[in-house]
């Protein structure tokens, strides 16, 4: 692998900020656990985006100050949250009707791998040691109008996560439309990954060296 000098990969908040910049006002958005949850912190308060949590909270607001914490009001990650004016509560079945019925403009999930055909693997490692836990990942991935993945470009030991075919168990097939990594933003197109933009100093060649799937510049 070649060395890219003077390139500073985005940290978790940097990735979340980059993705948040692309969410327009008015979208209904579900954020997965982990880095995706950080995205809402980077949407300016004056830009109205409606965040939805699987457990039936529509219009999730920021985390409350300690004095205003209410354990009756949690998100799908079981963290205490607030409700924006205009927010509402629905049951789990109505919440997933919303999710599965194509009413989310966007879902943002983390992933182990994304394949060039849009497959996503984010729910299980292949080992059978631990009880598998899927939560709402498969419903979200199959149901949202758009699925954007936010993840490190490679694993800690440098193995690519943008692959030709996923090696981990799949969450859903052919559903990812865009990937935000610590190095770049890539669209999933019928011809595979297309690089929309890269962090300063990164080159297509250096990015390709960190990617299993074939990359091409966006049209």
């Amino acid at each position, binding site marked *: 692998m070649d060395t890219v000098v003077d390139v500073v990969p985005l940290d978790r908040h940097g990735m979340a900020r980059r993705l948040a910049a692309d969410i327009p006002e008015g979208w209904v958005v579900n954020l997965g656990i982990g880095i995706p949850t950080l995205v809402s912190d980077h949407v300016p308060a004056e830009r109205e985006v409606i965040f939805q*949590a*699987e*457990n*039936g*909270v529509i219009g999730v607001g920021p985390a409350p100050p300690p004095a205003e914490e*209410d*354990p*009756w*009001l*949690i*998100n*799908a990650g*079981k963290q*205490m949250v607030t*409700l924006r004016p205009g927010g509402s*509560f*629905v*049951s*789990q*079945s109505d*919440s*997933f*009707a919303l*999710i*599965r019925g194509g009413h989310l403009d966007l879902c943002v999930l983390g992933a182990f791998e994304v394949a060039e055909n849009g497959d996503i693997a984010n729910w*299980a490692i292949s080992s059978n*040691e*631990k*009880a*598998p*836990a*899927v*939560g*709402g*990942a*498969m*419903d979200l991935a*199959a*149901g949202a109008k758009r699925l954007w993945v936010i993840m490190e470009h490679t694993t800690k030991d440098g193995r690519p996560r943008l692959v030709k075919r996923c090696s981990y*168990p*799949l*969450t*859903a*097939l052919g559903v990812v439309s865009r990937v935000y990594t610590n190095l770049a933003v890539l669209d999933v197109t019928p011809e595979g990954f297309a690089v929309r933009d890269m962090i300063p100093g990164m080159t297509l060649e250096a990015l390709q060296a960190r990617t299993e799937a074939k990359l091409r510049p966006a049209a």
Partner: protein
Amino acid sequence: MIDKFVASALEAVADVRDGATVLIGGFGQVGTPNHLIEALCERGLRDLTVVSNNAGTGAHGLARLMAEGRVRKVICSYPRSRGSVVLEELYREGRIELEVVPQGTMAERMRAAGAGIPAFWTPTAAGTQLGEGKEVRAFGGRACVLEHALKGDVALIEAWEADRWGNLTYRMSGRNFNPVMAMAADLTIVQTQHRVALGELDPERIVTPGVFVDRVVHIPYGKPRLW
């Protein structure tokens, strides 16, 4: 006069049988019928199938029920919560069956049971491990799997307010699986934080009509303990 209130949680679960399928409301620790689960533990039953989004934390509630060997099978979407050690251990030792179901499919399967739909098609899980062994058919060019109604013999529910007809409201994210489970079981048992007079609930604000409820116990439990 219709009066669905009973005196205690123990009385409410007195006729639950060995081998029953029990739907348990709540998401995380919010909206969980904790007193009804403890009462169920007291019954010393065998071979229960439990349907619940999470699989218990710590040593209380569902974790206790499993630890005491009452549960043959768990159907849930997310068994791996903070402190869900009991299930992990039983699972590793092969002493409990686990059916992991996508959360939306789990909710929809219970809604189907409550609404008289024996089976439905969904794209969720098609082509994945959790879709293996299921009938597949394409609709509009998209692969779907056939999912079947998931019905309970009993549902344990937590509500915020209840009246003697069993009309229920919920509080914030305490609503979660409770309304759908209430309609999906032959016997629906509710623990409610508040008991109100008939006619006191705004008819536009009732979430679960009493039609779906069989028994109610007044347990002013207070705030959920998150972990």
